[in-house]
């Protein structure tokens, strides 16, 4: 059984990365695991390094996933 898809949040600005959603507008396909993002990947909003993201278990507000996918 595979690991559930996870969500990560940038501690520099709060930008979130959701493995289920990916970031299609930034060239990251839905389903892309955090571990598969390059180590030199940085927050698209504030440039904070990947290592400064924290995995979070927080649900979305209504309509949140649609907004998150195009953030």
């Amino acid at each position: 059984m595979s690991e559930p898809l996870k969500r990560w949040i940038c501690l520099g600005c709060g930008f979130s990365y959701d493995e289920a959603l990916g970031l299609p507008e930034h060239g990251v396909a839905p389903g892309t695991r955090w571990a598969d993002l390059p180590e030199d990947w940085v927050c698209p909003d504030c440039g904070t390094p990947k290592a400064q993201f924290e995995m979070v278990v927080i649900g979305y507000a209504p309509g949140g996933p649609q907004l998150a996918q195009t953030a």
Partner: protein
Amino acid sequence: MNPTFVLRANERGHDVISSDGPTSSYVAGHPGAFITRESSFNFHQYQAGRPGFGPIRVFGDETFHGAGCGYNMHPHHNFVICAFVLEGELTHINTAGEGTVDRLRQGDYYVFSAGSGGKHCELSISPEDMNAIYLWVLPSQLYLPPSYHRGHFDLRTRRNQIIQLVGDADGALPFPQDLRVSRLVTDRKGAFAYAPRSAEHGLYLFVVDGTLTCGDATLGRRDSLGASGVKTLEFEAADATDVFIVETAIIDDDRVRAWEKEQAEAS
């Protein structure tokens, strides 16, 4: 009841962020302006230390030095950010809702829930330095509609009582997380008690000024303590003491436990 941990003023992370050089796009006011930041918790790349408290990731004691100093317009998502102005004046330009230009002085405070995305710019434009306490908190839900609220704590009329500034009490600013921020300013010595909603709620007390005694611990200016698993926290505050009391659900403390284990092994 003794605190779970005590953090002395000089044990906090200390950073000086210049308006020149590599941080000049982030910090406003070149030339001459700079920000000093004393961080109670681990903050991003700036310091090691206790990785937050419940959903709190930042508890910062920041001073903007020099006219024009501050943070240039920058984006946020999700985090709920509060500033409580202690001294000076903070001009806050925020895109939440229809957009706001706010000027906050001593006793004023704001709650900015960045939610699905917002930007803000914070500046001290008067000659006086600006000192504020900043909180950054993970929200109860991701991508909430962005919101901005501001309030005022009247230091002259609300003495010797614990006043809730942020949370669910009458007149407090709403906050999208299980968290309450209260403030106590004394003009005489007194004994106080704070009962969190449940023993699963933690308390973080930060002494802005004065002296506070809790169990075996005596705290002075800018010292702080954490307590969890308590039904009621009793403490004494000296004359002319100013304290912030933050109550929050201890949601997930795996990172904190790992950090505490590392500290114990290192010592």
